């Protein structure tokens, strides 16, 4: 179950951030050589030049940061250019002017009043929006100029949409020539190469591997206890002429059934936990995940491998049970 949850949640986090970046742009411009968009600073003045380029459908700038919001210790802050505010679907109020903010649906449930303190400044709440991206629903949207003052930067990144996918690569080349201090990539390749995603994936892999090893040790110790308590049975089988392979196969099969049952149980439980996560207000929608077919198959393969590997030594010990013990036990 640990592997299910770790894989799903890490994929969920990566998926949310990827979706946020990829939804409204084909090209992303960040500060050159910066590992994380949180630290990136790009000149927002580039927007004017980019907008005049052929094959540019639209462009906008965004600041991504994090800050204490009201009583919440931390929340995502999204400073967006005015032309992008309509991306956030209002379900209450209106879009923010300077000095005002929009609250995501999740965070709005936890904040009361007409104003909210973000960092050291108080903002008027203009409305609330909903989104199918947990990061957005758990965050606060404000004008990029306000966010710029708060985080002391022009823009974290600029997203550009081209009029046709076939023009994207040529557009990347052209934008790159605008400034030596910027890094320009298609959002597709950015997502694939983004260091933070690699860190999350690697961390998830390490934790999953530890969970795998613990599972392996658990199966091995459970099987050892089972084998020990059933020594007499294996002795009977050996005395009746059953081969060592017969005993090993039987134990493998039993472990597989046991592990597959545990897999199904973990699948259902993980599904329930993952369904509950978005509804836990304190998580602000930042932690979510879904069980993809890939994750299910990956965990199934890990379970089968874990079962076979974990029962290998106990099965071998069982197969080596000496049937003479049956006679010796009865020997007077």
């Amino acid at each position: 179950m640990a592997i299910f949850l770790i894989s799903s949640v890490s994929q969920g986090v990566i998926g949310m951030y990827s979706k946020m970046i990829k939804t409204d742009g084909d090209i992303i411009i960040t500060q050159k050589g910066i590992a994380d968009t949180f630290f990136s600073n790009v000149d927002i003045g580039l927007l004017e030049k980019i907008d005049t380029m052929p094959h540019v459908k639209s462009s906008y700038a965004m600041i991504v940061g994090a800050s204490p919001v009201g009583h919440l210790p931390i929340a995502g802050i999204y400073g967006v250019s005015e032309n992008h505010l309509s991306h956030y679907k209002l379900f209450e109020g209106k879009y923010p002017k300077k000095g005002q903010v929009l609250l995501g649906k999740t965070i709005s449930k936890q904040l009361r009043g007409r104003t909210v303190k973000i960092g050291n400044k108080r903002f008027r709440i203009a409305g609330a929006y909903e989104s199918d991206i947990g990061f957005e629903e758990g965050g606060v949207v404000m004008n990029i100029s306000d966010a710029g003052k708060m985080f002391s930067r022009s823009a974290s990144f600029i997203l550009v949409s081209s009029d046709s996918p076939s023009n994207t690569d040529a557009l990347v080349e052209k934008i790159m020539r605008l400034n030596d201090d910027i890094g320009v990539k298609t959002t597709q390749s950015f997502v694939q190469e983004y260091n933070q995603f690699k860190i999350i994936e690697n961390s998830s892999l390490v934790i999953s591997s530890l969970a795998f090893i613990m599972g392996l040790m658990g199966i091995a110790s459970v099987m050892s206890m089972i084998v020990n308590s059933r020594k007499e049975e294996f002795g009977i089988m050996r005395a009746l002429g059953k081969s060592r392979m017969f005993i090993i196969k039987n134990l493998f099969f039993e472990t597989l059934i046991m592990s597959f049952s545990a897999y199904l149980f973990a699948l259902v439980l993980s599904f329930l936990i993952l369904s509950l996560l978005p509804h836990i207000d304190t998580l602000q929608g930042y932690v979510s995940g879904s069980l993809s077919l890939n994750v299910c198959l990956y965990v199934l393969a890990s379970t089968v491998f874990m079962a076979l590997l974990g029962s290998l030594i106990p099965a071998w010990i069982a197969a080596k049970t000496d049937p003479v013990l049956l006679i010796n036990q009865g020997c007077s």
Partner: protein
Amino acid sequence: MIKASKVSHFYGKEQVLFDVDLQIDRGDFVFLSGDSGSGKSTLLSCLSTLLRPSSGDIFLEETKITEIQNIDLFRQQKIGFVFQFHYLINYLSVYENIALAAVKGKKEKINALLQELGILDLASRYPNEISGGQRQRVAVARALINDPLVIFADEPTGSLDSTNSKLVYTLLAKAKEQGTTVVVASHDEHVKEYATRMIKMSDGKIQ
């Protein structure tokens, strides 16, 4: 049919069998007697292929047992065992316990065998649902299912009352009548009534 030639066995440094020579003919009902620690169970283990002696040779049907390619299959097809405790597998029914021992083509005769031993009505019951005597009769049925050449029984009535003991010996004698060689290691002097041959062991030697 069974021949042991200069069979010795050690458990660690302790020698328990000393150059035992023995020949058992087909159809014999052998009563292997002796005090505790006399080596009769070790000899039984060696003769039945469960234990490889430290030295000496054992032949079954003229074949040296160390030269048998698939000793497990050989044991399943040619040898039946009855132990002091029934050693039935508790999560298997009576029928399944016998089926576990049956080689291909023998499963069909399980019901007939159970009928013959008067325990057909127990077929679907589990070992913990039947009496000790009934369990041992099931153990005899399991030993007989493959029409073995020889049945080795180690204190088969050690945990039974006299009525059930008599029943078990009668079943083994019946198997002997049908051509199966029977070797019983026991303290129970009643085996004499059924045995055609007696072998007494003392201090790891045949007297």
